């Protein structure tokens, strides 16, 4: 294992996040986990979306690509296919992942791509200053819905489970130890690993606060009755508690990553390969057009 320190993962950039933002906790847990695992920064690619959470890449000294709103997961798949030796982490918010990027979320799940997806879910649009997000509670009043949110929230955990996710976990940004453990499990998982993090917005969300979560969350990791080995029981458990749970919710040990399932796909990174086509191969292909 190479010696990797926390300093290796820090950048000179000053944070643009509000003081007290839940995203600080997510960044810290991620950095600590990468250091603990001894993964050098150049072996990590973080693909971030648009929104407060999308600024993640500004503060972590890995390879970073900050893409267009909602497209973190297809971009992350591109990075992974180009260089499968990289640890590819997609990071975004609830708007990026469950509104504009919802389509890609479901498809990334069912493809089981070898990408670790960390969502900083604050149930609100922060950077555009306080509109409802797809995970906002029914009835929540904000400037863009002054009479209350008439929509029902997306339930990311049960959605992922029904779409066929092979690793589903939920953390809380102020429970660092658990969150780091869940991220570590995600990194070890072959295939798509989804870690939803309840990450409070201290400026615009006065409902889903740190205190709210401290009172409401049920820790499945500490629940002696719960085992994360059944998709059906996992769905029941999260729905029963309106997704106010933390811990490893489901894990499929038989998961096969998309890149491993692709027929003939190179086992070594495409990025470093000699890409020239042999003349004999070319002529053979051409002959099929006679």
């Amino acid at each position, binding site marked *: 294992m190479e010696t990797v320190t926390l300093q290796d993962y820090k950048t000179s950039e000053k944070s643009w996040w509000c003081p007290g933002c839940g995203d600080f906790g997510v960044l810290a847990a991620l950095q600590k986990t990468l250091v603990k695992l001894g993964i050098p920064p150049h072996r990590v690619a973080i693909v971030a979306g648009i929104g407060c959470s999308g600024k993640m890449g500004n503060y972590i000294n*890995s390879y970073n*690509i*900050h893409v267009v709103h909602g497209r973190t997961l297809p971009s992350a798949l*591109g990075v992974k296919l180009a260089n499968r030796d990289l640890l590819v982490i997609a990071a975004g918010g609830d708007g990026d992942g469950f509104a504009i990027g919802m389509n*890609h979320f479901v498809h990334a799940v069912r493809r089981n791509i070898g990408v670790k997806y960390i969502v900083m879910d604050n149930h609100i649009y922060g950077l555009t200053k306080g509109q409802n997000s797809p995970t906002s509670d029914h009835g929540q009043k904000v400037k863009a819905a002054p009479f209350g949110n008439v929509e029902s929230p997306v339930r990311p955990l049960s959605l992922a489970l029904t779409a066929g996710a092979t690793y589903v976990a939920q953390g809380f940004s102020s429970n660092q130890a658990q969150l780091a453990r869940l991220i570590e499990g995600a990194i070890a998982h072959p295939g798509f690993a989804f870690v939803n993090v309840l990450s409070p917005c201290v400026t615009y969300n006065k409902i889903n606060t740190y205190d709210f979560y401290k009172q409401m969350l049920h820790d499945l990791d500490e629940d002696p009755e719960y085992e994360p080995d059944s998709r059906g029981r996992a769905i029941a458990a999260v729905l029963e508690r309106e997704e106010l749970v933390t811990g490893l919710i489901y894990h499929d040990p038989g998961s096969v990553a998309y*890149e491993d399932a692709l027929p003939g*796909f190179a086992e070594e990174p495409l990025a470093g*390969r000699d*890409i020239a086509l042999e003349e004999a191969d070319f002529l053979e*292909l051409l002959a099929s057009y006679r």
Partner: protein
Amino acid sequence: MPKSLAWMIGGDQGEGIDATGDVFGRVLSRLGYCIYGYRHFSSRIKGGHTNFTVRIAADRVLAPQANVEVLVALTQETIDRNAHLLLPGAPLLADSQLKPVLPDGCEARLVEIPLTQIAREVGAAVVRNMVAVGGSAALFGLPLEAFEAYAREKFERKGETVALQNVEALRRGHAFIEELGLMGRFALPAPRPRERYLMTGNDSLALGALAAGCRIMAAYPITPATDIMENLAGLFPRFGGAVCQMEDELAAITLVIGANYAGARAMTATSGPGFSLMQEGIGLASMAEIPAVVVDTQRVGPSTGMPTKNEQSDLLAAVFGGHGEGQRIVIAPGTAVQAFADGFEAFNLADRYQCPVIVLSDLALAQWLQSVEALPPEGHAIDRGAIVAQEELDRLTGEFERYRLTEDGISPRALPGMPKGQFLATGVEHASSGKVSEAPQNRIAQMEKRSRKLDPLRARPGAIETSHTDDAEVVIVCFGSIVGAVDEAVELLRQDGVRAGRVQVRQLWPMPDVPLAAALRGAGKVLVAEQNATGEMRQLMRIAGLEDDRYRSLLHFDGTLLSPQRVVAAVQELSVKEGV
């Protein structure tokens, strides 16, 4: 003797019309003829009229022929719609089962042939079209053995019985026409046999991309681009690559950007509606200076338009689409050979200039079969552009400056996985380190850097291709697949004593203004021919200062293929009205 002869088969969609046209064209190609095979079809799976025309010539032809010599009709609708294309006395082979009727006034010779009945006698109704092929071979006096050999080869994997049924169908059709005394009714010119391939622009473009080292292709199915995805899906597993059929074009383009960022060569292919969806992603590639190859096989727009008809109306969207001012390179092949070359070179340009490269194809180029004599892989070498050396990164004391301001605007990139090369690639305006910056001076410096890197392309060799321009009194300027019709028009005009020439613009952005101006300098008149309604290329030429009182437009936008005759007529009109 005419320059070419044409054979058409028509019927309902889903009746194997394409496959039959393919067989007829391929055998003629093997016999040494140059082929251009084109279809009329609609956006449905079964039912509705479709036809396939095989134009046959001794030398290369890349445009439709005005009339046809032989029409094979599997439906009465085929006769009603197409009989007028036959000259008086020309044979119309119709299945007797139809009880076919010629339209009023039609002077073609109706030849009833019991296609369905013969097929049943042979033992398989599906070989009906092969009976027609055998009959057609007889009309053109072609050796049956070549057709038989092809049928054996093609149907071998379906078993001995199937192959024999097809051969028998060919023989019976041939014998039927022979008995009628119509053998060799149309003599073809002597062929000039050489090694030839019959392929579409989609086929050759996919091969070009593979030869260039593209190993990742992400796309969403759309006519007329889908063959590129399908071809590569068959080829990539053998070479370690992958085709990803994505949930939409937003995903396709951003996957391609992610893969190129991480050092692979990746592409997508789409048509108008998908291209519109990709515009935001293309902007990201411009801003973050990430190579990306996007093929737009144009069809009639806007919106769903006419999805199975030809048009060249995405040009301005290719150059200026999307918000903000992003840098793109737009190249346009017109032939299958050029589609191979551009499918290859697009990756070199993208890596060298670190920006999106749009290959503007069109439906006719993408889908119609044409003879190709040689695809020259040896003329192309892979150039990955500026990638920082690991030793240089090892020597760094500070952070890697991915977007360093350089004289030519090109900054070497690091690829993920290279130690000490970490940087942030972002669609947000950034400083030379990659870090977000909103400083006015930085904004100007980075915008100018991204713009100036494309300047040398204005004089890129091969950005235009000229023919007969030296002494031309009228020069026709075009891009894309219509170059075939324009070249044929130039030939016809010259036979008529009009000194016409042609310029094909192969790189549409940056506009090669200097070589274009030079090529057009001596022309009395400049006719800009385009398959769109608003003269998009002429608008780009005007921006580049290429416009004066010699310029005129030929705009063809009814969805049909531009014919050489239409181009000739436009030039003649110039002569009559304006005395060229």
